[in-house]
């Protein structure tokens, strides 16, 4: 008998992923790593959507996921472009170095 995985576990996993992402975003300084952490958080949200959609039998949750993925893809395109051009001009720059607009 295949043990049915309760939706709760999915939610727990998603929470864990989100926590890792948020923690990484706050403690790491490498812009690329921070970027990956954001992706992690986005996908944690996706997992939540899908899990709850299955549990509630509602297709809307899965639809929302597609939107998130499109937004994430667009974000990657723009964000990576910016990061690459920054690192090309200032090799080894961390996120804390990019503080030209501070008050």
């Amino acid at each position: 008998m295949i043990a049915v995985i309760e939706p709760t576990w999915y939610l727990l996993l998603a929470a864990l992923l989100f926590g890792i992402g948020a923690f990484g975003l706050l403690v790491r300084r490498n812009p690329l790593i921070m970027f990956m952490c954001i992706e992690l958080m986005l996908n944690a949200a996706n997992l939540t959507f899908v899990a709850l959609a299955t549990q509630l039998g509602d297709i809307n949750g899965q639809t929302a996921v597609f939107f998130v993925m499109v937004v994430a893809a667009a974000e990657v395109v723009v964000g990576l472009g910016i990061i690459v051009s920054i690192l090309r001009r200032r090799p080894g720059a961390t996120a804390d170095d990019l503080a030209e607009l501070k008050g």
Partner: protein
Amino acid sequence: MADLVWLIPAFPLAGFLLILVFGRRLGDPKAGWLATAMVFASFVVSVSVYFDLLGREEDERETVVTLFSWVPLGSLQVDLAFLADPLSVAMCLFVTFIAGLIHMFAIGYMHGDAKFSKFFLYLNLFVFSMTLLVLGENLLVTFLGWEGVGTCSYLLIAFWHTRESAATAGKKAFITNRVGDWGFMLAMFLAFGAVGSLSYSAINEAAEVGALAASTASAIAILLLVGAVGKSAQLPLYIWLPDAMEGPTPVSALIHAATMVTGGVFLLTRVNPIIAASYDWVPTTIAWIGAITALFAATIALAQNDIKKVLAYSTVSQIGYMMLAVGTGGYVAAIFHMVTHAAFKALLFLGAGSVIHGMNDEQDMRKMGALRKFMPITAGTFIVGWLAIAGVPPFSGFWSKDEVLLFALADSTLLYVVGIVTAVLTAFYMTRQVIMVFFGEARWTSLANDDEAPEVAEGEEPVETHHAHGEFKPHESPAIMWIPLVVLAGLAALAGILNVPELFGIPSNSSYKLEEWLHPVIEFGEADISGTWAYDNKYILVGIAVAAVAIGAALGWLVYLRKQIKPWEPSLFANGWYYDSAISWFMGNPGREGFQAVADFDATIVDGAVTGTAVAVKTTAGEVRKGQTGYVRQYAGVIGIGVVLLLGWFVVIRGIL
């Protein structure tokens, strides 16, 4: 023909534009002839408009010609419109005619001046403004002309602007006039607020039917009086006129005798229903300002030695008479005196110009004398002007001054006494001037230019030191200058027939012509004096007036020709009652401190509020922006905390979930 009334200002405007473009090419004297022709063309149009109106019924003698809508702003509708009615046409007739003669005179007077064509440019612009002033159908068009004549007077007084005193006099005239203009503008605002229109017909009708409250009417009248006092050189704003003698003499004749200074009297006559609808103290104020100015300026004229300064103060004094007439409800008398004064004062000024011209720009009467032998035509015409201004019957000044004094006596004996004393003084100082300039011994050979000459020991021949004036001989002016003098002399002698009373057997169908003509305009404001003691005893008044003239002239004769009485010319009078120096002192000391205090208030309180606000904003912003650290991870942390707090708020406080 009355529809062509717009041509009256159009001709001088065309002259102005033509000289503006071709002036330098036309040069001396063609530019002058062009300007003169334009002004006479205006006169011809005025005459034809006059005959057109004359041919109509009395209550139809009014034509409004609207050129275009000038200021269409909601309920403020102002047209550029001209009003041809008996008053404006009467003004146009004498303004354009006398201005034309003065233009003609100026061709001779300004001959050889480097800025000859520019002079006529300004003169034509001036005549344009003046005709605009008198023909305006509403207060704003009049104001346009009013400002125009103010600007032109500035340009013309300061015509020889390389001379410091001329430039200063121009500025003084302009600034003093601005003080009066302030009153005019406030009056316009008030009139628009109360009546909703600036047109004379609407304002006057509101006053006539009683739609204008007495308090509003009084305020408008007093503010217009402020304007009139500035333009017509009355106390306390007369100070610019004597200084304005710095301009070329034709300018003095045109602006400061015949036209511009009468603008204030004209304006008050135009709005006579408003004055009639005011409280009683308003006309009384006007009358007293006029009377006091007349007396005050006459005393100053007693002790002036500059040939033009005497005439300048005399002008102030004579306009005082007109104001006196306006204040006592004698609008016809005011206009009558304005016309005769324009003739004889233009004559006197031009005569003075001719003398100055003949004396090589000498203006000090102490260095003249016995000129009648050298300048017979100037002397003859000047004497006619003297008889007219002094009020010797049957010259024009006699009739108009008597009419003014008649209304003064009907109003108040005190005003009449002031008027009679002024008449004595007028006869006295004019006699003094005529004697000093044309009679007595010739002082120009002995005194000419002596302030520049070194000390000469007695008995020594002073010929060498006077080489500049050694062969100098006064000469009569050319025909182009004396022809206007002769015409004006005729006018000054005969202008009285415009409005002779029914005395001395003058038939009633030829008397009071001007009153008949102006009747529709001044009907509402004109005082009814029939039945007063003064009205019933005109012969006595005539006798008093003639006696006053005789006393003044005889005194002048005794003092200055027979030298039986020592001249009495106190420095108080010679210095104009120290009015100018009092103003200078006041403005220099307490005035300056006061204005400094205002400036300080502005710098500290007003500016302080503005800069204080800016400093407060800047400081706050400086503190707040420190929150923007520029660390992305800090922002992310703040956002995260914020999300948690929001969630907490939703869950715990709002109880969602």
